[in-house]
């Protein structure tokens, strides 16, 4: 029954451009367009001077561990190395969060808005079967999009770094694997749980999506922290993030499951 709900929602999502557009466009922007504009294109013109001295505050505030990694690199190589492995890391947290909350908004609040929820709730499916089916359809596509984006980004960066670093491939590395397969699932689940809670209280898809965008704030703070050099996505930070988001997931999913009540959902039909 869980897979029945999953298949039904998946068919609907595949045919909904309102959902597909952001899920496809944002990853393309983050994994192809931005790296090309920020890393590849400037690198085609040579950067002179000693390493790290002509760059951003992020470059100036690099922790000693990263500085050690840059030892012996030219300014150009150092910049490409830091931008590729550190600068873009938090951007990849936006992808699972955005994808999961957009799909979950449509799956939960969208059914209320389109008034299809009543017949669904009248069917002999348990609350947990319905909830799990809808959570899976929000979770799997967002993880697939994240993993594919990571593969594309790695290819773009490696194609470029292969010649720049004399045959060395920068990605994947441990931190990025932890990020994509550790932080991204937990952040996607947080997005789904929050959207379930919100969807139970709002009447429509857009309202749910707008409110669930609130979860982007901590992710954007991570992006700003990285750019300003306040935090760096090393193994420790990524490990801490996994722990934080697992805790957030437990809270959000607990309240999400509690808020998924047939009567509550119907009482707030548009």
């Amino acid at each position, binding site marked *: *029954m869980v897979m029945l709900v999953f298949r039904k929602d998946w068919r609907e999502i595949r045919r909904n451009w309102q959902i597909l557009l952001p899920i496809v466009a944002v990853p393309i922007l983050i994994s192809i367009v931005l790296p090309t504009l920020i890393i590849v294109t400037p690198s085609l013109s040579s950067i002179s001077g000693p390493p790290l001295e002509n760059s951003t505050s992020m470059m100036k505030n690099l922790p000693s561990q990263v500085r050690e990694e840059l030892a012996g690199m030219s300014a150009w190589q150092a910049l490409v190395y830091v931008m590729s492995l550190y600068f873009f890391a938090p951007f990849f947290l936006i992808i699972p969060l955005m994808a999961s909350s957009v799909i979950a908004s449509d799956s939960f609040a969208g059914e209320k808005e389109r008034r*299809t929820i*009543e*017949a669904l709730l*009248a*069917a*002999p*499916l348990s609350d947990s079967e319905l909830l799990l089916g809808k959570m899976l359809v929000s979770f799997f596509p967002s993880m697939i999009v994240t993993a594919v984006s990571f593969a594309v980004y790695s290819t773009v960066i490696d194609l470029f770094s292969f010649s720049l670093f004399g045959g060395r491939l920068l990605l994947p590395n441990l931190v990025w694997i932890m990020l994509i397969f550790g932080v991204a699932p937990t952040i996607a689940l947080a997005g789904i749980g929050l959207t379930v809670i919100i969807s139970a209280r709002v009447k429509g898809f857009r309202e749910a999506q707008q409110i669930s965008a609130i979860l982007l704030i901590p992710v954007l703070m991570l992006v700003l922290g990285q750019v300003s050099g306040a935090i760096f996505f090393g193994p420790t930070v990524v490990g801490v993030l996994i722990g934080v988001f697992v805790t957030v997931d437990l809270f959000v999913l607990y309240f999400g499951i509690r808020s998924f009540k047939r009567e509550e959902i119907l009482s707030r039909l548009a």
Partner: protein
Amino acid sequence: MPSIELNGLTKKFGLLTAVDHLDLVVEGGEIFGLLGPNGAGKTTTVRMLACLISSSEGSAKVGGFDISEEPTKVREIVGILTENPSLYERLTVRENIEFFAEAYGLYDAQERQDRIRELLDFFQLWDRRNDKVGKLSKGMKQKLAIARTIVHKPPIILLDEPTSGLDPESAKGIRDLIADLSQRENHTVLLCTHRLEDAEKLCDRVMIINRGRRVVAGTPEELQDRIAGEPTLQVRLKKTDQAILRAVKEVEQVREISVDDTSGTLLIAVDNLAESAPEIVTKIVYAGGKVLEVNIHRPSLEEAYLKLVREEKS
């Protein structure tokens, strides 16, 4: 055993009592109409019976299962047509009905396909099976929604405003299909409607509810008699005069006479119409009246219903 049984069923939303101690028994195979104006509590009653919302007081059994204690069992044996068709517009006709067939337990693929084919043929939707529901007309969507409602052959069907929003022709089509289906598959039907025509043409018995309370119940004919009074005898004459009126008044069963001057019709309220009508006509003829037309006027359920709702408001 009754198919549906309500005992003091009540639903409160805060201070508002939407359904107020409703008692009702629907026997197996019966088409029972729940009539009432908008906001009377019909949809809330259906939602409670379909286990979509809980009751505040009282109890109800559907197919012998208590709605509070065995909601999943109730959902399995009930087919509900909600006020809105509740169809997935981005899915095809076939995908919609397949989803619900499986959700209601038709796991055997061949059995499921046979049933879907049977229903889509019956509702003349087979040729549109691969079209997205969003492309269908309102009438077709309603047909599909009814097909979805009965896909698992539920013994009990709850229909909430099945002809609402349809043009008269489509509404008649849906009514005919419901009548045909209930005969073919012997469903027990609880039909909620504010369209008197639906109740009059489909229902074995009806109950009028208002503000969540039972107002009156019975067969459509009983309600017509009880609410709007006995039928009247209408005699259209070429010319009326006092002699004719005196002659009619001599008949013992005559209670009241009035004259519609514009049409020259005598409106005669009588006891035991079947016996007294020939005597009244004979008296009129002997008094010199020239009879053009004789009719028995029975107030429609609609007239009866409107009278009742006016009384309730005042």
